[in-house]
């Protein structure tokens, strides 16, 4: 099938492309930042990697370049599409272009309300827990106060119920060491 051939070549192209910039990426992605989010509409990781055929259509479809191929994360997820929020967070597009193009239904609309990952504040690294006034994560969270909020001492907390795991807070956090992590 014409379509299939194209998919393979796109697959190869992206793999090569990633190889090419492997070093650069490796450098920019600090060890500690190596926590990742799964694309919108995915089930738990195990099911996701079973269904995803690595066509990378979602990566091409994402208008915000939030999706990328995992590499050197861990053996299980490497080469599957993921989101590295420290580089680009997910915009949670209302029409989910990524889900729409996913043929093998690794990403499905009915799961689009599932959080992309579980977010946690690393108190040791967070300014607010260390004598600095910082609120970037709370100010920038697209959901607002209900997902991440400041307590009466200006320290941020995450409300797992409402957080969709978009990773915007991780992306904006100005801390030198990652102050928000994803529990995979």
């Amino acid at each position: 099938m014409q379509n299939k051939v194209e998919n393979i070549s796109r697959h190869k192209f992206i793999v090569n492309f990633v190889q090419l910039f492997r070093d650069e990426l490796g450098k920019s992605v600090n060890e500690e930042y190596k926590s990742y989010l799964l694309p919108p509409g995915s089930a738990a990781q195990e099911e996701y990697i079973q269904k995803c055929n690595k066509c990378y259509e979602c990566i091409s479809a994402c208008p915000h370049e939030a999706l990328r191929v995992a590499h050197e994360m861990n053996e299980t997820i490497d080469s599957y599409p993921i989101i590295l929020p420290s580089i680009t967070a997910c915009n949670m597009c209302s029409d989910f272009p990524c889900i729409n193009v996913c043929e093998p239904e690794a990403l499905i609309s009915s799961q689009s309300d599932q959080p992309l990952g579980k977010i946690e504040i690393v108190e040791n690294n967070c300014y607010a827990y260390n004598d600095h006034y910082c609120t970037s994560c709370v100010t920038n969270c697209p959901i607002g106060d209900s997902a991440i909020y400041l307590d009466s001492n200006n320290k941020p907390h995450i409300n797992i119920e409402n957080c969709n795991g978009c990773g915007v807070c991780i992306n904006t956090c100005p801390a030198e060491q990652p102050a928000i992590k994803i529990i995979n």
Partner: protein
Amino acid sequence: MQNRREFIKTSAAIAAAASIGVQFPSKLMASTDTNWHKSVCRYCGVGCGVMIGESGGKITAIKGDNQNTINNGHLCVKAFYLPKAVHSKTRLLHPMIRKNGKLVETDWEEALDLVAKKFNEIRKAHGGDALAFYGSGQAETEETYMANKLFKGCIGTNNLEGNPRLCMASAVGGYLSSIGADEPVGTYEDFEKTDLFMLVGSNTAEAHPILFERIMRRKNSNPSTKIVIIDPRKTPTDQIADLHLFPKPGYDLALFNAIAYVLVNEGFIDESFIKAHTFIKDNEGQAHDLTSYKEFLNDYTPEKAAAISGVPAADIVKAAKIFGNSKTAMTLWTMGLNQRKRGVWANNLVINLHLITGKIGVPGSDAFSLTGQPNACGGVREGGGLCHILPGHRLVANEAHRKQVAEVWGVPAGNIQPKPGKHTIAMFQGLNDGDIKGIYIMCTNPAHSLPNAAKYWKGLKEQFVVVAESFLPTMTTEYADVVLPAAFWTEKEGVYGCTERRSQYMPGVIEPSGEAKWDAFILRDLAKKMGFEKEFAKYETAEIIWDEYRGLTKGKDMDLMGATYNRLKKVRGLIWPVPTEEHPGTYKRFTDGDPIYDALPAEKKKNRRMYFYGPKAKDGKATIWMRPHADPGEPTDAEYPIALTTGRILEHWHTLTMTGTAPQLNRAAPKAYVEINPVDANKMGIKNKDQVKMETRRGSLNIEARVIDRPAPGTVFVPFHWKETPINVLCSDIFDPGSKEPEYKVAAARITKI
């Protein structure tokens, strides 16, 4: 060099930091060979004390000074990254001259010779008023002082301004006309004593973060403390609000009068305070009594004010009752009141609320203006860095004042012109018109920061422009004929005076980068080359300059005689009046404990608890002003239906020359955006992150939409930091006829989806 004790102390501190898990690399890397120096944050008007970590001639870390009572060891995230600004690749290292359209490196000799020659030619051919100086609330007091002497005292022009005109001039006008003296009566200490914070046009959480922490702490430890916010935009400050009034931008004057109406009619006023301490005056300055003030307020019932401001009458009554019922009250305000066509009136009307209720001059009560820049109060308001004033709260129009200053400067009294020079907008208009042919710009970036900025690029392009800067490029250096590398914070010593009348010393702890020189010395050397050798011979150290200035404050309301360098180096700043080296500084002015008040003869203090002795006060009285409502300069209309307002965010400072050097801060806040209320966005079919076109009568730009429930419907907000999206080009340059401060906060705009 550290001695053993210090060594053990720092090691212990580092061990302690490590044990509680602080992993900020700069803290850990700041190992035992780090020398710590007490200083002040470079950024905002809060004036937080910092400890500068220096090692091997480099600034390696910044931490909060836990002995400084302003911030008790806390800092905001901007300050943390200051070392990156000091050693940034964008530091300007050599003097540069424009040759064939390009800035090329040169040496100091050639650069200053050129400036001196050009300035002297202009002065000879067109007079001193063809020259101008434009300075900064971020310059040190000593630096502004040197400029003042050169331009007002030697060149003989009062065309000397600074960017505080763009942010604080209305507060100055408000204080002078209301309480007869510039700057607040109380200090930050009142934050821990008040029952109510009324925040007007102030996003304290982002613009004055450490003060916001103090407000929060007060509320935490004393939950009955109320927070009332008056602002057209919901901001991060709202997390602690008990009540928020959303006036339409520029329509709040009626609202303040309506609050006064409720206070007066519900019996919340302090008639004996009013009688003993105030005059009541109308807009023409005619005296009135309380009865006619009450009649005046009848025009501002909550219902009428609601119709004008868009704030529900019930909320106005609620706010007024909270104010009235609170035993003590602090009103804090910033640019939302000042950057307005009627900024002085707005300031007067807010101060009125404190005067009619007697909520002033007692612990926990004050009308307290928050200053934006770290030395707008110290260097410019006190130091006389504007076109109508002279050092030590003096006026150019006052003959005795001119004489006093001329004598200290060692120049003929006739050198200082009696007529105020051109205020900021007039100055840049003067460049456009060719009346001003040469300008010296120091420590600020007007090509980016002026309102209606593009209009003033013409003059900058056409006239001879000298820019003394620490960073290159800026939007202003694009127009410079000569660029002079200025030493940056930590590379020079000097004094900053913050919001609460506190002057603090900053040491120079490393050598200036490249060939950079201290601004005060650049001006001194230029002055000498211009022929004022004799007048500038003595200024060999910062302390000599400070001492001369200090002498000029003797016996003034802002007496700094007791604030010697020696003393300032040891203490965490001193709050004036501080008349002698033994005096601890003054918590409350105009009342018991203020040395100037205490020295007044007893009969003056009879039957009263305050005596407003400031330079503009009469009989020791403050003034309650009957200011009518006034609309903004550019109301919205069918063509431009949306009110545009602008401001700052937490992560960045002004035009990004400094915070832009920290990748972490850029990542946190990478580009400009326009906040649009979801209601408006829906109507216009705009989605989050859409590109939109913003237009005002002055220009248009493309910008990303941020659909968020922050600005009230009908209002949009854009932060002004990024030169790629210079929103100030769209801002209105209509200014307050009194304070000459432009109305950045209100412009009529329209938005279309691209």
